[in-house]
């Protein structure tokens, strides 16, 4: 393969500089600050801090509610990712097969991605409301069956559904693009050999989609860990009784609402390390099974 190189390295550096500067200002600098705060007790109004070493981490890791937060986050990430990717793959395949009205579906399916998370949260708050929403019909049949404000697992289901719904659009675009880049000749050849749509899907399209599946998997998992704040904030506020207290939401409520900047900083370091470790595992072990053409 031929590659282009810059003769002089300073041009490359110059071209990279704006991007590096942005990353420095919005990532490395705040992260370094967070690392420093994580090892101190920071006074919210400034005016000094005390070095406490690993105390903040020790406190967090000894807190049973923190571990329940980790557990809920993992469940949320896996369930929301599986649901979003499964749904979007099915939808993309339908659109790819150009069923009637596929052009309208294609546009409609991309829309949810443009909706802000709090708006999604509010919409789902209405849908799942036990007294007034669509789900209140469940309660008219069997009273007390559906109440995400009291029953923890139901609250978790609500945020998973809302989170997955928002992510369907993003995955859908990528799946559709990937499906459409599969050469027609391959599909047609398979069809001539007598493979029906389902068989073509399993033997032909899915294997060719693995790079996209892998990419979306990494993005969706990362996003579920770091970008679920808006939905939790509007739908459940972390409750009932910590049932939907995702790690990223706990950082917000401890740090910004509770003025515990250091505890929140330590939690965000743990979250960052966790996401980095997950991504490393994904690239190191899962990517082996991916075939790039």
């Amino acid at each position, binding site marked *: 393969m031929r590659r282009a190189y810059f003769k002089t390295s300073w041009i490359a550096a110059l071209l990279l500089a704006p991007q590096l500067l942005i990353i420095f200002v919005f990532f490395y600098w705040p992260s370094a600050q967070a690392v420093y705060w994580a090892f101190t007790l920071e006074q919210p109004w400034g005016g000094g*801090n005390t070095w406490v070493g690993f105390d903040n981490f020790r406190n967090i890791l000894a807190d049973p509610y923190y571990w329940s937060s980790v557990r809920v986050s993992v469940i949320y990430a896996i369930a929301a990712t599986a649901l979003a990717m499964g749904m979007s793959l099915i939808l993309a395949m339908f659109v790819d097969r150009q069923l009637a009205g596929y052009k309208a579906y294609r546009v409609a399916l991309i829309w949810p991605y443009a909706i802000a998370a709090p708006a999604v949260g509010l919409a789902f708050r209405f849908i799942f409301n036990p007294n007034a929403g669509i789900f209140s019909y469940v309660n008219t049949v069997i009273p007390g069956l559906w109440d995400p404000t009291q029953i923890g697992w139901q609250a978790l289901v609500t945020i998973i559904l809302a989170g997955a719904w928002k992510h369907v659009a993003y995955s859908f675009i990528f799946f559709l693009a990937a499906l459409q880049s599969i050469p027609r000749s391959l599909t047609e050849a398979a069809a001539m050999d007598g493979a029906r749509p389902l068989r073509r899907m399993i033997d032909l399209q899915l294997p060719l989609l693995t790079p996209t599946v892998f990419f979306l998997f990494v993005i969706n998992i990362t996003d579920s860990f770091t970008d679920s704040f808006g939905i939790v904030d509007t739908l459940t506020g972390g409750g009932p009784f910590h049932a939907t207290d995702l790690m990223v939401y706990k950082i917000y409520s401890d740090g910004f609402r509770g003025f515990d900047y250091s505890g929140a900083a330590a939690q965000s370091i743990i979250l960052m390390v966790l996401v980095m470790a997950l991504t490393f595992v994904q690239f190191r072990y899962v990517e082996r099974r991916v075939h790039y053409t």
Partner: protein
Amino acid sequence: MKTKFATAALAVLATAGAASAEKTKFEYWYGLTGDLGKVVLETCNRFNASQDQYEAVCVGQDGYEKAVQNTIAAFRAKQHPTLLQSFDAGTADLMLSGQFYPVHQMMKDFDITIDWANYFPGIANYYSSSKGDFVSMPFNSSTPVYYFNKEQFEKAGITEAPLTWEGMEAAFKALKASGQECAYAYAPDSWIDLEQFSMAHNVPVASNNNGYDGLDSELLFNTTAHVKHMEDVQRYIADGYAQVRTPQSGKSARDSFVEGECSVFFSSIADHNTVHKLKPAFAWDVQMIPVYEGTERHNTVVGGASLWVLAGKSDDEYKAAAAYLAFLATPESEEFWVSNTGYIPVTKAGYQALLDKGFYNAEPYKNRDLALKSLTFTEPGPLTRGIRLGSFIQIRAEWKAEVEAALAGQKTMKEALDTAVARGNDHLKRFAQTYQGKSFP
């Protein structure tokens, strides 16, 4: 072209300079929202129209918590306002930070006379240093009461709104017997269920006289009458007298009351105005929060927010802010504020002026001064001055989460309160460690 441009720029600068020479501006960030936020803005407009030396630039911050959060962020970037409306739970952090200009001192420095003795002691104690000097300016002040549906009470044969919990329970039973599905719309609220309950019963929330005497305080509310009270609330729910009504469950306690679904709900007196505006289709009234029989009733304390002057501003800005605070302290301003919101007057003179006018005898203000009666029921003692605990937002959150768990049947109320105390004590320890070697002014 270049010279033309430069002249234009100079001209702009000159006018800007002239404008700022005319009026000294200062910024004020407030947390109240909706109707109440509009009234705050109105006080600024009235101040700006009343004189031509100063201009208050008032910015709503969408809630108490956000006002403090945003101000902290701005403070660290040295872009903060001169004046901040901060709620009760933010008091301890602000006090220990030392990043404020005590109003008492500021008024003295600018030769503005304020009769500090004129403030109700229940309010003064909350916002004063241990030496009795005001550190922040009392502003929107309230205390809890309960709201009841007069017609449903009459139908159930209850002639007088009970002042004891035993009487309350009898009333709930009578209401239930008269066919009222939901007697008591309950929403867990540590401000009412824990803090004000403890004040009225003269029992401690925490050691060190509720934190006033030092940072090494420990929570005590799992050892007091509060436990019995919360167990009773749980029993009211189990027996079908009370129902949990929160916005998350579809309808807030207030809406449940206003729509006639529930007969009683507890809230701040500030809601008096809101309930009126929502125009319930029945007669209603308010009463002081109940105490248990055999307890001597004590005063409740002030809730709401006060105005803090922050450090790091210029003398001109302080002068302007002082003028605004002095303006707010006039009886006319107080009457404007009280009649347009549900809040209570903070000064004795302001209250007397309203009484002389017969303000509290006529609708829609009738009986609103029950809040003042509750606030001034006794002279504040060591346990009823208020609460001065760090990390108090988190302690409230722990309390609420644990109580919700108990109400959902995941643990007993005693276990829940024990856990809330243990976790709250961890927060207090962290707070004391953060501010090592410091003490409340």
